[in-house]
C-alpha cells in the first residue's frame, strides 16, 4: 500500500487523474475519487455509539442498512460546526476485512464533480509530521482553487477499520 502510493506520487499524479467529487470543510476544498462514492444524503439523526473515537459520530439507517458515520471536521481536528441544511453525508465504499463496507462522511457541503488532469496534481506537501499528510493523495489546482485529494481508504480505513481490528 505504502509503496504504491509513493510510486503514484512520484509519477506526478498520472495515476491519480480522473473524476473527483469535491466538497468543503471550512475554507478548504477537498476531493474524493468518484469511484468510491456511493451516494450523497442530507444529514439525518445519528445514533451515538459508545466507546468510539470522538470523530465517529455514530450510526445511521441507510435504507435498512446500518452504517457508521464519521465527521471529517473532527477527524482532521478542525473545529466542530453545527450541522445545517447544507451539511451532507457522503457515503463511500471501501474494502473491509472481509467484504466491502459503506461508511458515511459528514462534510460542510458538497460542491461538484471535477475532472482533474494529471498535470494539475502535485504531491502532498511535507508538513513535518507524516500523520497529517498520509491521508492525502495529492493537491490539485483546479479552477483557480486548491483541492486536497483524499485517500478514502486511509481516511476511513484508519477511522473505522482499525477500530474493528482493535
Amino acid at each position, binding site marked *: 500500500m505504502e509503496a504504491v502510493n509513493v510510486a503514484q506520487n512520484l509519477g506526478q499524479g498520472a495515476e491519480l487523474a480522473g473524476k473527483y467529487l469535491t466538497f468543503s470543510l471550512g475554507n478548504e476544498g477537498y476531493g474524493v475519487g468518484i469511484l468510491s462514492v456511493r451516494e450523497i444524503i442530507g444529514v439525518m*439523526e445519528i*445514533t*451515538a*455509539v*459508545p*466507546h*468510539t473515537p470522538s470523530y*465517529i459520530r*455514530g*450510526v*445511521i*439507517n441507510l*435504507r*435498512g*442498512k*446500518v*452504517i*457508521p458515520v464519521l465527521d471529517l471536521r473532527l477527524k482532521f481536528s478542525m473545529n466542530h460546526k453545527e450541522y445545517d441544511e447544507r451539511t451532507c453525508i457522503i457515503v463511500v465504499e471501501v*474494502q*473491509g*476485512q*472481509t467484504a466491502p*463496507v*459503506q*461508511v458515511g462522511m459528514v462534510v460542510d457541503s458538497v460542491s461538484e464533480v471535477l475532472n482533474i488532469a494529471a498535470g494539475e496534481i502535485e504531491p502532498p506537501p511535507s508538513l513535518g509530521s507524516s500523520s497529517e499528510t498520509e491521508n492525502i493523495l495529492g493537491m490539485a489546482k483546479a479552477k483557480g482553487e486548491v483541492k486536497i485529494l483524499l485517500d478514502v481508504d486511509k481516511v476511513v480505513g484508519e477511522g*473505522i*477499520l482499525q*477500530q*474493528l481490528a*482493535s
Partner: protein
Amino acid sequence: MAAGHKPLSDLLDEMALKILMIEPGDLSIVGELLDLIEKLLPGQAAADTPMVIQRMAAAFKGALEKFIMGELADSAENYDFLGQCITEMQESARKEGRPGEKILEQFCENMKKIGFSLQPSALLGANDAASAGMDKAGEAALGEDACAVASPQIDSIQAQAPAAEALPDFLQDTDLLAGFIEEAFEHLESIEVNVLELEQSPDDQDIINNIFRPFHTIKGVSGFLNLKTINRLAHATENLLDDVRNGKRSMDSAVIDIVLTVGDALKSMVENIKDVLQNGPANYKDTDISGFLANITQLQEGGGEAPSVEPVSAPVADSPPEIFEPEEAEPLASEEEAESVAAPSRPTPPTRAAQVAAAPRAELPAGPAARPSADSAQKKIGASIKVDVEKLDALVNAVGELVIMQSLVRQNKLVSRIADAKLTKDFSQLTRITSELQRTAMSMRMVPIKQTFDKMIRLVRDLSKKSGKKVDLIMEGADTEIDRNMVESIYDPLVHMMRNSVDHGISPPAEREKVGKPETGTVFLRAYQKGGSMMIEIEDDGEGLNTQKIRKKAIERGLVSESDNLSDFELNNLIFLPGFSTADKITDVSGRGVGMDVVKKAVEKLRGKVDVQSQPGKGSLFTIRLPLTLAIIDGIIVRVGTERYIIPTIAIQESMRPDRTNYSTVHGRGENLLVRGELVPIIRLYEIFGVESTNTDPCEAIVVVVENEGRRRALMVDELLGKEEVVIKNLGGLDVPGVAGGTILGDGRVGLILDLAGVIANKTD
C-alpha cells in the same frame, strides 16, 4: 494485511472438528482437512503464524497426503493420533508459537505412530523435513499387499490413481458440464435421502421410482457429455433398479447397499469433474468402477437371492463374491481403468455388503410390482427454487423499511388529521399486507431441520454397521424450522454428538443384554421449539457418563479442587471444558483427543447453549438450545436520556422502581440493590455509555434486573418504552464492547442492542 486470513485458533478449531468427523474410508473429510492445513503452510499462512506451526502444518500435510495415497493405514486409530497432533498444534498456538520441547516431541511421537517419521529438531530448524515428507508421499507405488498388512481394516480408501490415459474429451462444453455438476449433486442427494426412506417403508414404489429417476437422468446427461465412467456406472445401477421396479428382484439390503456406495462413488467422481473444471485437466482422476460393475452384475445374475454375507467380526472377509479387491476387478477393467489398478486402488465401502447381517432391519421384503405413474411420485417433492442469500437479505431489508415508512406516513400530522373512513380502512388493509409480507420474507430464511436430520440416519446406519452395535435412531420434530444460516453450522457439532452417543453411549449388544437392556440401543434425535428457542436433544439409552471418573480427571487437571462440592450435573458438564479434550481419554466420554469443547464453541457461536444430563447405566441426554434465527432478537426497548437501547428479553428477570430501603452502597461507590433477598450490583447505563441521563438517582429511575452467565446485575435506565422483535444488523464495521449490534426502530432511527456480557465485563474492569 491479515485480511482474508482466519485467525489461527479458528483454523485449528475447525480442523479439530473435521478430524472428529473422519470415518475410516471417508476421504472427503481428509480432503477438507488438507484444504485447511494448506492455509497454514509456509508461504500461505498469515504473516503472524509462528514458524513452528507452519512447519508442523507442513509435516501434517505430508501425513495427510500419505493417507490419501493409501500409504498410511486408514484406521480410526491413526486418525486418533492425527487428532492429537492437532491438539498439540492448538497447544503450540496457545503458547504463541513457543511450545515446549515436550509438545514437539509428542507431536513427532504421534506422527511416528502413524508411520510418518519426523524429528522434533526439524520443527524448530530447517523446514526441509516437511518437504522431505511430501516427497515420500509422492512415491505412491506401494504394493497392495503392504497396504493390506498395514491396515487390517482396510475398509475403504478410494485411492484414485492419476489418469495416464489421454484426457477424456468431456471438457469441450464447460457450460453444460457446470450445469451437470450442479444437477448431479442434487440428484445424488435425493437418491440418498430416498434410499434411507426406503429402509423405513420398503414397499413404497414411489420411492423406488424416486431413486430410479435420478440415476436415469445422470446416465442420460453424462452419456451426452461424454463422461464415460460416470455413464457406465449410472447405467449399470439403473439397470439393477429397473429389475427392482419390474419386480424381477426385491429391493433388499444388498441392492440398497449398492445404491448407496455407487451414490458415494458418483459423488466423488462428480466432485473430481468439478475440480477439473476449476483447476484444470491436470486434476483429473480416473476412478476404478469395475468393482461396482462386477458387483452389480453379480447381483443381477443372482436374481432375487440375497448375496452371501459375512459376519461382521471379519470386515475384510477372504473372498466374499462381491469383494472390491482391485486384482479381482482387473480382468473386468477396460483399458481406461487399467492404469489405475496399478496403484493401490481400493474403491469405496467394500465391506458394507458384508456387514448387512449385523444391521437391524436390514433385510427388506420385496416391493410390489405395481408401478404408479411418475407424476404422483413427483408431487411429493415440493417445488422450490434457489435464491441468492444476498437477494433474500435485500428483500428482508426492504420489507423492514417498508413497514417503517408506512408507520411514518401514518403518523404524519397532516395525514393523521384526515378523518376519512375510507382512508382508515385502506390503511389497516395496507398494514395487513405489509405484515404478511414481512412474515413471509422472514420465513424464507427458515428451513426445516429435516435436511440435517436426514444425514444423521445415514451416519447412525454406517456407525452401527461398523461397530457391530444395533442402534435404532428415532427422530422427532424434523419439521421444526431453523434459520438457514444455522443449518450448516449445526451440522458438524451434531455429527460429533451423534457419534459420541453411538460410539461411547451405546454398548455392544452382548453387554447390553447382560445388564438387562434390549440388545438394540435407541438414540433419540429431537427438535422442537420452546419459547423463542429451538431445542435439539440427543438422548441415548446407553451407559451414561461416568461421573466419578470425570471428577477424578477434573481434579487431576486442576479444573476443580478436591474440596469442591459439585452436583452430578455440574460435574457431567465439565466435559465441555477445553481441558478435557487433550491427551489421554476417558473411554466412555471422549473420542479423538479433541472433544466436546469444540461442540460447545460451535454452539456458542450460534448464540446457543449446550448441556448434558446423565444417569449412570441409563443413558445421557444432550440438549442444545439455539435461537430460532440469528436475524431476530426479542428485546425490551429502554430509554436512557435521548438514546434508546434494546435489552434482550431472554436475559431480563424483572424490572422495578427501586425502594430506597433496598438501596445500599459499599464504601460510597459500589451500589447494590436488594432484590428478593439478594444483593445485585447496579450498573448505571448512562455512565458506561457516556450519555446524558434524565435521572441520576436510582430510586427515581427504573432498574432492569438481568442475568448473564450466572451474574445478575441491575441496569439503571430512564424509561421502558416497550417490547419488540427487532432485526439484528451489524454496525457496518464498528465493533463496540457492550453493544451486540444495531437495529432499525419504528421511527427509522438506529437503536443499539446491548451485549450484556460486554456491559457487565466493562463495569467489572
